């Protein structure tokens, strides 16, 4: 089955690396993956998006057509891509202010995640992308967490292995918690 994921943020957040890790994990798990990127016109600090397509079959068209999962860590990226948000939306609640009309509704699940806060508490904001990947892994069933963690550790500098492992696991726990909370709400309904 073809799955399309868009990760949007700003230059410096490691958005493209996050997309690369997701694709790398997918091919390690025997899937097909394609990643493309898009940028705003700014030289630095501008919006960037990593678009990842996953499939069990070989991928024909490598670009995202209608993202099933959108993740935003930057207001500018969210604003630019908000017309193409699909059934699942994750956004960093400390970095993105959601328009009310984009909120959860019939057929759309929205998660307010806090990878930036996790990264700040770890003392290194550069791991916001890795904490985000942890949350994404927990909140979707794209790939097993072990496969993702392995791809994270294979993609980051050796001296930063512990920091990134911690960021990923913290993000994962955060995501699992959000997922459990939603389940509880659904059960109560």
């Amino acid at each position, binding site marked *: 089955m073809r799955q399309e994921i868009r990760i949007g943020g700003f230059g410096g957040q490691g958005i493209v690396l996050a*997309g*690369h890790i997701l*694709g*790398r994990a997918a*091919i*390690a798990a025997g899937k*097909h*993956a*394609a*990643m*493309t*990127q898009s*940028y705003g016109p700014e030289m630095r600090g501008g919006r960037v998006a990593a678009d990842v397509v996953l499939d069990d079959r070989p*991928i*024909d*068209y*490598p*670009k995202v*057509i209608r993202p099933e999962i959108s993740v935003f860590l930057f207001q500018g990226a969210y604003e630019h891509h908000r017309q193409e948000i699909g059934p699942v939306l994750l956004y960093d609640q400390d970095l993105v202010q959601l328009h009310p009309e984009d909120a959860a509704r019939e057929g759309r699940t929205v998660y307010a995640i806090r990878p930036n806060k996790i990264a700040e508490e770890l003392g290194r904001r550069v791991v916001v992308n890795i904490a985000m990947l942890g949350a994404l892994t927990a909140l979707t069933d794209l790939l097993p967490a072990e496969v993702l963690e392995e791809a994270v550790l294979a993609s980051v500098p050796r001296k930063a292995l512990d920091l990134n492992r911690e960021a990923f696991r913290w993000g994962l726990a955060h995501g699992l918690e959000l997922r459990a909370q939603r389940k509880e709400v659904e059960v109560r309904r």
Partner: protein
Amino acid sequence: MSAQVQATDQAILVGQHFMSGDDACAEGAIAAGCRFFAGYPITPSSEIAERMARRLPQVGGIYLQMEDEIASMAAIVGASCAGAKAMTATSGPGFSLMQENIGLAFMTETPCVIVNVQRGGPSTGMPTLIGQADMMQVRFGSHGDYAVIAYAPASPQEMFDYTIKAFNMAERFRTPTFVMADELVGHTYERVVIDPAKIELVSRKRPHVKPGERFWPFEPDPDLVPPMALAGEGYRIHVTGLTHDERGYPAATEPEIQERMLERMLRKILDRRDEIVEYEEVELEDAEVVLIAYGSTARAALHALRLARERGLKVGMLRLITPWPFPDKRVAALREAEIIVPEVNAGQMAREIERWIRKPAHRVNRLGGELLHPDEILRKIEEVA
């Protein structure tokens, strides 16, 4: 015949990678034995130069950052004359500057590989966005008559595979060859599998005699390709862009030598076109509508094809892997079908296709900056089916 050897050296990154097309191109070149790169980085090909700058010193090769693309092209011709497998990579504006020395490479029968990661043009156009508008320039861009071997890869894996093939063909025929990629192929990351057992390498023919013995550098073997002596080995050689005889000496006022030399240079490639031409057929058996596409556009076309098949439409695709030499016989055999040609240009390969199907094709064009969307191609399929 050229020597064929199995690649075994450690320069080959064996295994599975999640790699961009530009990176895969650089790795393909190194796996093919390329040990000299001269270039002037230009978007969207810069990652090739960047990776070559990092990788070539690791394998004993040379990376030269040149002052411009004219010099880059001259440098790879020189390096190849000295024995190196040599490459440059560029995009539209640089490709234009290279044209004169591309002609020099043809005229001096110097093997080398030129990669063009196409972007929107003309001029500096759209540096970061896709184009496919250099497909005629690669065929006719330099002055004079010459025969071209060009590949249009459609994925990072093909960037790896066909860069190797471009080197092999360059070495086999003593000619410059081209990898006509596009921004999307260059910048997409996908699985690239590098398996040394599947890599076959070809190297240029060497003189049949020892240095000091009678040797004419442009005297061909029966396959019309002359063995190549390298600068500094002790053979007497003379290399010039002027029309020259078999000894390499200028014969710029002798039309019969021009006829003899140029005809051989064209025939050494065109007589073997059936061994060079490559294409992929997709569901052509019962196709009433046929898409003819290449590069990234072929992937949008394939998506459209699958959607159309789900709707019961009899659609097939011929993907041009070598736009040049053009697969003329295969295309001509499709003339009973409705032919759709999607391209990110104003209709370049469509002209050549129409020559062979002897009727107008249904053209779907973007002028650059954006790949055709599968839906646009699907609409055209539904319109003509």
